C-alpha cells in the first residue's frame, strides 16, 4: 500500500528526516512514536505533499505508484486521507459543505455521518471556527469518513480531547480502519476483513488511542531516524518506563 524508501526531507536548511524506510501493508495499522521535534508530523506532511517539506533523496510510492512529486490533491484522490492536528478555519465555508467536498463525486449522507461523531449541530458553522480540541478531532474524522481513504494519516488523535470524547474518537477511528465493529453474522470474518482494507499511520504520544484500535506494528522516530520496531503496546510500556533514552542507545 505505502512504501517509503530512503526518504530524506529538508525544512528550510534543516534535514528533518534522514533516510526513512517504511512499508505499510493494506489493512495494516502502524503506530509512530517519538519525542517532540523528532520529525513525526514532518513525515505526515511530506506524505501528503505539503509545501515547505522538500524531498532531497528517496521516494514514496502508494498503491504501486511513485507519488514523491505528485501534488497534494492527486495523493488525496489516490486514497490518502489526513486528519490535521491544527486545521485552519475557513470563513464562510460551512462544515456541511466541507464534508460534501470531501466526499467528492460519491454522494454521502452528511447528517447521518455527523450523527456518528455527534456533530450535527456544527454542520452549519464555519469549518473549525471556534471548535474546541475535541470538536476539531471529531470534525476531522467526519471529513475522513466522507473522504473514505484507503490510507489514513492521523496526527495525535488524542491531543486536546477529554476522556468522554476519547472513547467516541477511538471507536470512530477504529470503524474507519476496521469497518463496523458490531458482530456481523452475514458473512465470514475473513470476508468481512477483506471488505474493509483501510491502512493507518497514526502518531501518538500518550498511547490512549491504542485502547480502541487494533494496531499491528509500531516504531519510534528519533531525530529524523526510525528505530525500535516492536508491538505498539510494548513500545509504549517501554517509553513510559524509560523515556526515549533507550532509543538513543539503540541508535548508537
Amino acid at each position, binding site marked *: 500500500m505505502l512504501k517509503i524508501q530512503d526518504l530524506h526531507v529538508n525544512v528550510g536548511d534543516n534535514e528533518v528526516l534522514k533516510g526513512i524506510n517504511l512499508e505499510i501493508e493494506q489493512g495494516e495499522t502502524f503506530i509512530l512514536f517519538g519525542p517532540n521535534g523528532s520529525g513525526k508530523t514532518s513525515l505526515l506532511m511530506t506524505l501528503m505533499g505539503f509545501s515547505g517539506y522538500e524531498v532531497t533523496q528517496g521516494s514514496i510510492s502508494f498503491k504501486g505508484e511513485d507519488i514523491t512529486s505528485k501534488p*497534494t490533491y492527486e495523493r488525496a484522490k489516490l486514497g490518502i486521507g489526513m486528519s490535521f492536528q491544527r486545521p485552519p478555519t475557513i470563513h464562510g465555508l460551512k462544515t456541511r459543505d466541507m464534508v460534501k467536498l470531501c466526499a467528492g463525486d460519491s454522494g454521502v449522507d452528511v447528517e447521518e455521518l455527523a450523527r456518528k461523531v455527534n456533530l450535527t449541530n456544527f454542520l452549519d458553522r464555519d469549518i473549525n471556527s471556534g471548535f474546541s480540541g475535541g470538536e476539531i478531532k471529531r470534525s476531522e474524522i467526519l471529513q475522513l469518513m466522507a473522504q473514505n481513504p484507503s490510507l489514513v494519516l492521523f496526527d495525535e488523535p488524542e491531543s486536546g480531547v477529554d476522556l468522554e470524547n476519547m472513547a467516541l474518537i477511538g471507536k470512530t477511528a477504529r470503524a474507519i480502519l476496521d469497518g463496523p465493529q458490531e458482530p456481523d453474522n452475514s458473512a465470514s470474518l475473513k470476508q468481512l476483513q477483506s471488505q474493509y482494507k483501510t491502512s493507518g499511520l497514526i502518531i501518538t504520544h500518550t498511547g490512549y488511542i491504542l485502547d480502541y484500535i487494533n494496531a499491528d506494528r509500531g516504531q519510534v522516530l528519533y531525530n529524523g531516524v526510525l528505530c525500535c520496531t516492536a508491538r505498539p503496546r510494548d513500545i509504549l510500556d517501554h517509553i513510559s518506563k524509560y523515556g526515549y533514552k533507550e532509543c538513543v542507545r539503540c541508535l548508537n
Partner: protein
Amino acid sequence: MPKLDKVTTEPKVDLGKFNFEQDEIPAMANLKGLSKEDKAQLLMAGIDASEAKRSGTYLHINHSKAHCRSCQKDVEIMDTREALDKYDGLPEYYWQAVDKDKDEFTRAAASKIHGGYFIRTKKGAKIKDPVQSCLFIKGENIGQNVHNIVVVEEDSELHIITGCTTAANISSAMHLGISEIYIKKGGKLTFTMVHNWGEEVMVRPRTVAIVEEDGVYSSNYILLKKVRSVQSYPAVYLNGRGAVARFNSILVAPRGSHINSGNKIVLNAPETKGEIISRTITTGGTIIAPGIIEGNAVPAKGHLECKGLILSDGVIHAIPELKGTVAGVELSHEAAVGKIAQEEIEYLMARGLDEEQATSTIVRGFMNVDIMGLPDELRKSIEKTIEETEADMF
C-alpha cells in the same frame, strides 16, 4: 511589467460633464413593461421585476419616479417630492441628518432634486417582505440626484433592498444619492444596497442614519462589478440607549475600479453596540476602506473587522479607526490585508481539491453573505453574481 492602468488616486468628478436636466419618464403601472435587458440588470441589483414577495416597489429612472407601489397598508412609499408637498416640506427629516453644505455633491443634490423615495412604516408594524427600490440610469452621461428619506416608526420593522444600476449599454453616468434614515424607539431596519453599475459610472452617495432608543440598524452593501469610482461613507449615530448598528460590506474591485467605501458608527448613548465588518477583494483595482467607531458614552461596545485579499494585484488600503472619549468604552478592531493563506489552500487540497478549486472555495467563503440575512432569492442571485465574478478573478 509596468502597471499603467493602476488607479491609486481618486478620480475627480466633473459635474459639468453630466446631464442633470432631462424630461421626466412617464410613470408605469408595473415593472412588466421593462425590457428583458433592463429586468436582467435590475435582478442583478436585487430588484425583482415580478414584485413577488415584496411589500412594495419604488423605481426611479434617470430624473424621476417611474413606478411606485405599496402592497402593504402599513408602509407608505412615495416620491420624496410628493412627500415634501404632502407633509409641508418634512421639516423633521429633510436635510436634518445629512449636512446640505457638506460638499459639492450635497450642494448639487440640494440645488436640484430629482425625487427619490420616501418610505415610512406605521408605528408597531412588522413588515415581513422587503420593500424594493431601484435607482436606475438609462442614457449615457446622465447625472442623477436622488434624495431618499426612510422613517421607521416606533417598534416597527422593515427591510429595504436598494438596487442601483445602469442599463446594460450605458457605461458612463453620475449618481448622487442623499439618504437620511430615522429609526425611532424600538424600530428595526435592515437596509441592503446592491450596486451594479456601468464600468465608467461615478457614484457619490451621502448617507446618515439616526437611531433612537433600542433601535437596530443593519446595513448591507454589496458591490461586485466594475465601477469607475465610488466614494461613500455612511454614518450612523446611536443616540438612544440600547441602540445597535451593524455594517456588513462585500466589495470587489476589478482593474480600473476605484472604491472608497467606509463606515462610521457613533455610540452616543449607554448600552449601545456597533459592529463594522468589511470584506474586500481586489483583482487589479483600488479599495480604500476606512472605518471608524467612536464611543462617547458608557457602557458601549464597538468592533471593527476589515479583511482584504489582493488576489492578483491592486491596492487595498484599510484604515480602521477607534475613538473613545470617555472611560469605560470598549472598542476593538481587527484588520488584515494580504493573500489567501497557503495553509487553507493545502487543507482543501488534502481533501482532493486542486489548487484552483481550493482557491475559489476560499474566495467564495470570504464573500459569503449569510451574515446579512437576505431573502432567499436575493441571496441566490448574489451568489450567482459572485460565481460569475469569480470566473474573471483567476
